[in-house]
């Protein structure tokens, strides 16, 4: 029974309660960085690492932290992992760091992380649950940004993973405005699908 509810929570983070498409948290990097698929894979990996590690650490030290300092404590933990990721990317993926720039430290202030750290504090069945929760969140997040990133790269620069596909692309898709437009249209299509399927289920 317990296993089942854990698994359900894990799966719901991917589709039913997807952080980006449904809950609308952690939007800033989604729009700014997903100009190419490579960038979005990098960002997804960074966010997943910070999310899972901080979730595990917070759920481990939860008992020792009094209520008044739980926000600063979780922020310090998240900031520690973010700094780690920042330096790691600067050292080993220098091209990626040129593109991601300020947005790697800004993972820290992502609403997604703060929201989930609240959950890690409140959840009763400790480490496994928070690990599954964080893993679900990060998988849902990575899938969505990978989708948006590859769409923007194909439409905006006429390429996929650096391979040129066609000439004279729609340049606006690389700009922030294009990101807004693309996510809006994507959400509209998702809504349409959802309403269609729920109608079918009713019948």
């Amino acid at each position: 029974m317990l296993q089942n509810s854990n698994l359900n929570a894990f799966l719901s983070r991917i589709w039913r309660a997807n952080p980006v498409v449904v809950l609308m948290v952690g939007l800033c990097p989604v729009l700014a960085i997903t100009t190419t698929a490579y960038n979005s894979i990098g960002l997804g990996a960074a966010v997943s690492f910070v999310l899972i590690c901080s979730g595990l650490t917070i759920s481990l030290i939860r008992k020792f932290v009094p209520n008044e300092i739980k926000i600063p404590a979780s922020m310090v933990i998240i900031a520690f992992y973010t700094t780690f990721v920042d330096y790691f990317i600067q050292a080993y993926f220098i091209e990626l760091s040129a593109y991601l720039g300020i947005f790697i430290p800004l993972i820290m202030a992502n609403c997604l992380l703060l929201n989930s750290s609240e959950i890690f504090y409140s959840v009763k069945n400790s480490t496994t649950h928070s690990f599954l929760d964080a893993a679900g969140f990060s998988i849902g997040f990575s899938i969505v940004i990978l989708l948006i990133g590859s769409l923007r790269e194909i439409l905006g620069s006429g390429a996929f993973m650096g391979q040129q596909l066609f000439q004279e692309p729609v340049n606006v898709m690389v700009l922030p405005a294009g990101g807004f437009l693309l996510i809006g249209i994507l959400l509209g299509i998702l809504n349409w699908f959802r309403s269609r399927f729920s109608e079918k289920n009713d019948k």
Partner: protein
Amino acid sequence: MNSKILIKTAASSLKLAFLCMISALLISQLYLAIEPVIKQRKTETLILLYRQVLPNSAWFENKTAGNREFIAGFDKQHVQRGKIVKLNVRDYNGDIEILFGVDQENRILGIKILNADFRINLEDDSSKSDFFKKFIGLKFHDLKLEKNGKDISIIPGADVSSKAYIKALKKAVEEVESINATEQ
């Protein structure tokens, strides 16, 4: 306010301070370990860039001529084969840095744009490199950029950028000529 409250406050403060101390310790150790790697990577990528701009050279050295700074390129026999000039130009998209590679016969070997903000650029890099391709291989006296000389026409219908690059090119020519003058 009683003693119980004070003890509780002190305890929680010490807990957070302890947490901060641990993370500071870990971060500082991490930084010590990773900083040399970062520095090495940066120089490596810089040398790669220089090689793209000045393909005939094997190693590079920062030099100054008068009050101007430039990067001299040498081949394996320690013979100077060319020089690289770094320029700042104000573009439509803000400040950009451009690298010009010039060999000893004053022929342009390569042009590379650094430091452009990738996220909010109005045009992609491919159009810029296409624009610069037609200057590669030309000698300085082939592109007299003065009014009465053989002028390079600004691309019709282009925006501020191409004007800015022409300006950068002129600046680079001036710079290299003045460096040559001080060296001799």
